[in-house]
């Protein structure tokens, strides 16, 4: 059972992503957070409880209260204290090369995915996770 966190304020996109993940038939549990702050609060509280932490984070950039960039800045600091290997993917509707470039300055970012994310890419990420997780 894989755990996935979707950090995105767009309910339609979250709904569609859930459907795509479901269609991959990988057994998983999905948690939603509508902004960076809610997700960060959770991760910070649960940082030592590996069983409650995700394997994969899909992070949107444009969100209220705490956007994706602000989240990354905090997450970068929190990461060393998190007792689990987490793969973080930016999932954004942005096609700006500057933002892609900016994401490379964060080593915690595994990849920058531009919406819409293809089903194949999700499968790849899910299976990748399956292999590396004992």
């Amino acid at each position, binding site marked *: 059972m894989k755990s996935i966190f979707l950090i995105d304020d*767009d309910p*339609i*996109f979250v*709904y*569609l992503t859930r*459907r795509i993940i479901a269609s991959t038939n990988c057994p998983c549990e999905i948690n939603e957070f*509508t*902004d960076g702050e809610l997700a960060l609060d959770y991760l910070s509280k649960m940082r030592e409880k590996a069983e409650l932490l995700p394997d994969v984070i899909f992070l949107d*950039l*444009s*969100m*209220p*209260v705490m*956007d994706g960039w*602000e989240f990354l800045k905090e997450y970068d600091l929190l990461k060393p204290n998190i007792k689990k290997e987490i793969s973080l993917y930016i999932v*954004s*509707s*942005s*096609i*700006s090369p500057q*933002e892609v470039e900016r994401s490379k300055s964060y080593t915690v970012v595994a990849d920058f995915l531009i*919406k*819409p994310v293809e089903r194949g890419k999700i499968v790849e990420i899910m299976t990748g996770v399956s292999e590396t997780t004992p």
Partner: protein
Amino acid sequence: MNRFIHRLATRLRSKKKGVSKSNADEPDLKLISEQLDRQKAFYENILNKLPTDIAVFDSEHRYLFVNPGAISKEEYRKYIIGKDDYEYAVYRNRDISVAHSRRAKFLEARESGKEIRWEDSLTDPHGNVITHMRRMFPVYDEKGELSQVIGFGIDITDRKIMEEKQAALVKQLSANNAQLIDFCSIVSHNLRAPLVNISMLVDFIEASADPAEQKMLIGKLRPVIDNLHATFNELVESIQVRQDLEVQREQVCLEACMKRTVDGLQTEINRLDAHIETDFSAVSVIEYPPQYLNSIIHNLVSNSLKYHYPGRKPLISVRTEKAGDNVILSVSDNGLGIDLVKHKENFFKIGKVFHRHPNAKGFGLYMTKTQVEAMGGRIWVESVPNEGSVFFIEFANRIKQAS
């Protein structure tokens, strides 16, 4: 120069005397003296006609020479020879600080042994700021001793004004560029996001064979399309504000403007039992495009209502005050407030939302800022989280006295 010529003439005279050829030499001496006078006049004429101010100092910063470019009145020019700036300041009953700063420059040139340059600005009797580029450099005699320090200044006011214009232009261009980047970001995030949703929904509809599911998915298209529509309209409107430089200004009565806003928000005001007070006694009329002013006040008051503190009756105060020639309009509330330490940079940016509110889209303040800045004004905010916010708008030089 004078001294030098004088000394030369004296030396020549004594030389002639020493040879003691008496009378026979007299016409010669007169000729030389005349020649020297002509040369003196020639050089002085050049120095006096140069459109530059020139001053020559001895090694103790006493004046040896000034040209009319530096001191136009002959009487003053005569007085200053052999004096320094302190004595001159007393003589002319002027501020001594100029003498201080000039002495500092003189010492800098004398100590360093090199040319120094600086710019100084002063205000002329007509109130115009005149800027000079000044240089000062030491001159040494054949023995290597400091013989004089020469200073001169060129009026660079025109160049300075040009530079300021260019700087203003560069600032304007950077502002335009920042807006362009904002615009790209909004196109990328706020327009592309709903388009992606639409295309994904259509993919699912196409892939589905179940009519009931298809219907459900089609139902999800509606809010996405509405959102796209709204975003698109907001964008077009903000571009129109920026481009509509000819927009008509009118005398707008703030009381009437306020009434429109209150009427428009009446349902919400009643629902929250909000109290709105106004004080336009300082300034009651502003010359502004009425649709902008209506929109600005509506946006700020509606924000105060939208981001009220739960369980606290909204108290909103709208007032004007004078700030020199300008008018400041402020809207204060006792609402949620904003953490400005966190959000300062993004405050008025497009698509930025600071609260978890279903109707927060991040357009209102961006639009307000656009409408304020397009007319040469500025907007800023003060806020304490959980206590409230005050938005200030300074309207540039558009004061109209209430009668």
